């Protein structure tokens, strides 16, 4: 008799939020082929309903934890938190895209279900408890994004960005599979808690298999480094972010990052925290991550100064922000601050999601139908024409800088706090100094809008309702978590349970 799980042991209930979303996407596909051309606008709203239903299920089932599909999936507070982040990202991503797609003649309903499938991939990533699931979820996350970045099809820049993203993404998937294979070879399992137990035994026994694990962990860090745009692997980011349609860039810059960091945290903090070599107190991957984080923060921030295109500037800024999150991930490798590090990374992802979506939302508002009008100089005199939009943009820029009373400050504060507790003082100092560098180009946007004369030639006479709703959600999120940081602190304190249960923390 072949050993197979029974239907009862699947415990499908705990994966319900993600399953609901994927089912919603399939239903959307079916509905779409029956809709006549003039009713196509419905698909966007149906997708939004799907996301909200999934968000509702997530919020209602936060206390329902456990494993599903024979331990391949795990639902804990980490999963729930990440689900909330990516679902909000998806909802805002749909809202800011609706009008843009219509006016730039890209209103194909594929956009919405590709976005839903990609979001599903991110949710599975947060729930992954097995290296194979991480691989499948990463592909589910990435493949729709490759298609979406080429959405402005006849235009070569968009096609170039899709092809570049696809080739490098496929390349990084190769790294990931190779890394998984090596770890499987050394430990005999792809199940993360089993990997943790096997690695602990290998390290204590002084077996030479530890080199296989080290190599495997390195390859996985490289692969996920591609996805989150960390520095030696960031080359694709500016071109892809610039060429892709702006709503796709907004969704991609936040969602793919959330998914990538979820996988990184799952693999490193749950699977490999006991990979301690050469009499050190922290896991072996900490030094590598700290170096990558430092390079990412420095290069991202300095390269962003040079940019004259807003989308390119935000691309480099998103590289820089990946560096700050990596700092928190590195901190999580120290056994005593593992929980703090994970909390800080998640907190940063949440605040970054709101702020960055908002900033891209404003770019969508100023962008012309042919994709121009997004250079820094186009913002001259913006505050005269659209005082409220300019104020909101200034607010998002201050939040990206990390000024107090914005969400960005809370995120940065958590990250620096975790980093200093982990004893990474040098890294924290680099973080603070590069934040100051970052302030230069973020404040430059504000100066262009408010202090310089000019006539920003606006694409639309008035802001469409859906875009306005998206901007309000992003703005409120940035404001609420900035002014009431204890709200966010309450949300993240529960996350330690999931990690402590494994004995890794």
């Amino acid at each position: 008799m072949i050993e197979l799980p029974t239907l009862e042991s699947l415990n499908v209930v705990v994966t319900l939020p993600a399953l609901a979303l994927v089912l919603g996407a399939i239903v959307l596909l079916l509905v779409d082929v029956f809709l006549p051309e003039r009713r196509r606008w419905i698909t966007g709203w149906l997708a939004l309903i799907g996301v909200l239903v999934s968000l509702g299920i997530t919020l209602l089932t936060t206390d329902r934890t456990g494993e599903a599909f024979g331990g391949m999936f795990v639902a804990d507070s980490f999963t729930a938190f990440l689900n909330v982040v990516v679902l909000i990202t998806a909802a805002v991503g749909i809202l800011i895209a609706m009008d843009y797609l219509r006016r730039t003649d890209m209103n194909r309903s594929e956009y919405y279900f590709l976005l839903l499938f990609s979001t599903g991939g991110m949710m599975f990533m947060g729930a992954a408890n097995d290296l194979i699931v991480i691989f499948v979820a990463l592909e589910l996350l990435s493949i729709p994004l490759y298609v979406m970045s080429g959405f402005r099809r006849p235009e070569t820049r968009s096609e170039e960005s899709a092809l570049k993203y696809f080739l490098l993404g496929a390349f990084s998937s190769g790294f990931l599979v190779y890394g998984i294979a090596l770890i499987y070879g050394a430990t005999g399992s792809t199940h993360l808690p089993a990997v943790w137990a096997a690695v602990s035994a290998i390290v204590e026994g002084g077996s030479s298999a530890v080199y296989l694990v080290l190599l495997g962990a390195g390859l996985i860090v490289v692969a996920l480094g591609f996805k989150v745009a960390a520095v030696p692997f960031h080359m694709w980011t500016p071109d892809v972010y610039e060429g892709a349609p702006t709503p796709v860039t907004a969704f991609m810059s936040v969602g793919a990052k959330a998914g990538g960091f979820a996988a990184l945290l799952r693999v490193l903090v749950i699977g490999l925290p006991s990979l301690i070599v050469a009499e050190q107190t922290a896991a072996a991957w900490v030094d590598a991550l700290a170096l990558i984080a430092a390079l990412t923060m420095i290069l991202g921030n300095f390269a962003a100064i040079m940019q004259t295109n807003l989308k390119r500037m935000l691309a480099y800024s998103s590289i820089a922000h990946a560096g700050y999150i990596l700092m928190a991930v590195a901190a999580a490798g120290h056994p005593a601050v593992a929980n703090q590090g994970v909390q800080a990374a998640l907190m940063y992802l949440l605040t970054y999601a709101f702020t960055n979506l908002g900033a891209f939302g404003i770019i969508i508002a100023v962008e012309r139908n042919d994709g121009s009008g997004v250079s820094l100089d186009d913002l001259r005199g913006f505050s005269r024409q659209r005082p409220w939009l300019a104020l909101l943009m200034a607010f998002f820029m201050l939040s990206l800088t990390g000024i107090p009373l914005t969400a960005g400050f809370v995120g940065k504060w958590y990250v620096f706090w975790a980093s200093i507790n982990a004893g990474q003082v040098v890294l924290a100092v680099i973080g603070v100094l590069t934040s100051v560098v970052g302030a230069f180009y973020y404040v430059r946007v504000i100066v262009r809008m408010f202090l310089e004369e000019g006539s920003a030639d606006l694409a639309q006479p008035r802001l469409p309702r859906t875009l306005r709703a998206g901007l309000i959600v992003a703005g409120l999120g940035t404001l609420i978590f900035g002014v009431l940081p204890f709200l966010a602190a309450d949300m993240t304190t529960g996350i330690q349970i999931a990690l402590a249960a494994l004995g890794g923390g």
Partner: protein
Amino acid sequence: MNLNEWAFVGIFLAIAGILPAVPILLGWLLGPRKPNPIKTDTYECGIETVGDTWVQFKVQYYIFALVFVIFDVEMLFLFPWAVAYQRLDLFAFVAMTIFILLLTIDLFILWRKGALEWT
């Protein structure tokens, strides 16, 4: 976990290299060599091409190829499943039903979108 187990991989690689190398080497050592222009010509299925080889193919070929791959993979999963069917329980049945259902939806959407029409 002993690293010596990996020696088999090394031996396998060595044999994989030697096996094709030996006949080529033997042919080069023992074979007579009388070259003429026709013999040294590049081998291309015997027939010379008519016209330019760099023609563009219809994009429909790619869509058909993709659809073919989808159902090819379905076969790949169905055969072992069918062979072991007697020894499987309800779980395997439900899993395969879901899989086939999803593929049916695929085919349905392809048909509705007109991907199966050759125009």
